[in-house]
């Protein structure tokens, strides 16, 4: 491998790690819901992309950061809607019921996007899109640095919320022992609904950041983002927020590493092999959350 090949390899991996922040943001949402309800919400990435699409309604009238805020708020609304339709009135002791309802919601949201836009890709605004930092022979994209900072901010914010607020206390209590939490006067359904809104808020941000990082929104994004989000959640450790962040970056980096070394037709094989390796040798993921008392 020549010097220039090595530089390209390192740049590719670095680009992948930076792009992995969008996977990390999606992974955080998956893991938050799993942490509280012990359920997988498969429609999460589709709702996130859906929120980004909805934010395009205001793209002509507000500055770009407000478009992102709008995506986040609409993500929260979609999160509440997903909870109501797919979880609130379904038997939660039947794992397949919520799994199937969220699969249905994923397909419904995807088709709704397709019908609203006829499947046409939509330009999505980016902040710092033209900003590129040249560090020696390497190039760092300003927009991805922004997404990375936002991901870290989301992680810190969530951590603070979970540890320092009454809502966080209720969330942790419901996650650990929902019956005891209920006996202490906490409303399980309200806590779950709030978790979905918060996760949706994050999802909307993730959708907007994904759109901004690519520069285009397409319904084609829903399925790969769902798969990547799940891979990140498993590798990071179900229920672990720092795990989701680290795993998002790892998956992004590994993806680009194998894209560079083995090409596009083999790239995903290695990412999936990594997932299987984790499932077999470290099923709890990188940062397995400590088990509850029960």
């Amino acid at each position, binding site marked *: 491998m020549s010097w220039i090949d090595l530089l390209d390899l390192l740049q590719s991996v670095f680009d*992948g790690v930076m*792009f992995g922040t969008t996977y990390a943001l999606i992974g955080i949402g998956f893991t938050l819901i799993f942490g509280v309800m012990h359920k997988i919400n498969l429609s999460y990435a589709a709702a996130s992309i859906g929120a980004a699409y909805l934010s395009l309604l205001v793209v002509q009238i507000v500055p770009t950061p407000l478009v992102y805020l709008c995506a986040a708020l609409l993500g929260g609304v979609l999160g509440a809607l997903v909870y109501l339709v797919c979880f609130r009135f379904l038997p939660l002791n039947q794992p397949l019921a919520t799994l199937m309802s969220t699969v249905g919601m994923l397909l419904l949201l995807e088709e709704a996007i*397709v019908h609203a836009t006829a*499947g046409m890709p939509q*330009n999505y605004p980016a902040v710092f899109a033209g900003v590129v930092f040249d560090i020696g022979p390497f*190039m760092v994209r300003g927009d991805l640095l922004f997404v990375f900072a936002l991901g870290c901010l989301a992680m810190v914010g969530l951590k603070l919320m979970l540890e320092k607020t009454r809502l966080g206390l209720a969330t942790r209590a419901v996650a650990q022992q929902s019956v005891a939490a209920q006996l202490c006067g906490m409303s399980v359904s309200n806590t779950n609904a709030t978790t979905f809104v918060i996760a949706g808020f994050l999802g909307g941000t993730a959708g907007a950041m994904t759109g901004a*990082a690519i520069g285009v929104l397409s319904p084609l994004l829903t399925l*790969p983002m769902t798969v990547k989000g799940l891979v990140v959640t498993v590798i990071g450790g179900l229920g672990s927020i720092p795990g989701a962040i680290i795993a998002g970056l790892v998956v992004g980096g590994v993806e680009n590493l194998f894209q560079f070394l083995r090409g596009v*037709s083999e790239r995903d094989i290695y990412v999936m092999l990594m997932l299987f390796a984790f499932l077999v040798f470290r099923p709890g993921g990188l940062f397995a959350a400590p088990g509850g008392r029960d």
Partner: protein
Amino acid sequence: MTSRSIRRVLSLVPIAAALMASTVQAQTREVKIYAFGAKSGVVRIFGLNSEAAMKAAAEQINKAGGVTLGDGAKGKLVIEYLDDRCNAEEGINALRRIASQTDAFVAVGPTCSNVAEPAFGILQKKVGDASDSGLQFPLYTDVAAKGGLAAMSQWAFRNVPSESAMYKSLFEWIKATHPEVKTIWGGVEKDFAHSNATYNVMKDHASKIGFDVKGQSEWLLADTSFSTQVREMRRAEADLVMISAHPFTTCGVLKEMQRQSVKPKMLVGLTSSSSLETLQGCAAQAEGMVIPTSFAPVTADARKAAQAVAAGGANMDLHNAAAWENIFTLKDLIEKSKIMARPDTTQADRNKMREALANMKETTGLLGKIGRTDDREAIKPFLFVQAQKGEWAVAHKPN
């Protein structure tokens, strides 16, 4: 005339009116043209645009008096469009469903090559072959672009431009008019049949014409990150970058090229990208991209057709322009081959329509005469368009 007799005459008026109406109804039969393509899923726009073009064409024919059927009756064209989601299995189901209708004697579609290939595969390969139980139903494709598919069955016909001829002509034109372009780098969406097949066509012609094709970057239809691929492009420093991909990834790659300051002297795109989708997704980054296409509103007929389709809320491009042309061609063939469009003549009508399509040597398209090859493909006039300030402008009209 007494008032009594006037009342008697007046009382007969409604009866006479009813009789006249039923006679007219009997004389204007509904002539169904079935069609199928993607009306849902991520390439829904293909189906929507095709359906809109066919309906607009049918409306224009009906307004001009409809179609004359074999028994002298007037027929009113009705378009029935089925959704196949760009999915092979659903496309086959749609075709079988159409073929089971007693009022179906021809179908237009599908929109996707990955549906066209298996759909042509279930048709009888050779007419009159009693040992082949394949469907005996004429299919006249408008959109699915992968070359050479009609050779699969004598019941399959296509009004799709030859991408091979288009790209050969395009690279010859580039060679003649842009002598500074010597090297080429390719970009291809590997997992989409049309993009992949057309990339090979592009590469072959570019090499034969004398360009140095230095290599290619590959990505998938749903990829979101293109930095590695664009770095390969950057290293190649080619004079021309040719991208064989659909609008979503074309835009993703063009935006990444802008980030990495990859500025080739020329950009060439896939035929399917010469649509509004690309401009909607990345007009600024696509500026200057040249694409061969079989439609642009450059003739009076083409402008009129584009306006009619726009009135129906769709946009005309190379794909649905073919759908429009197909309906006018079918109208002519229905009249020439004396199609009856009655439930008792269904199979005879299908045979007549196949014969008519097979014997057709030339048709009239929106850009001029369309020739036919022996294996039932079209030889369509084409031109090169270039993205300029958010619009597709004509760059060159080859002879």
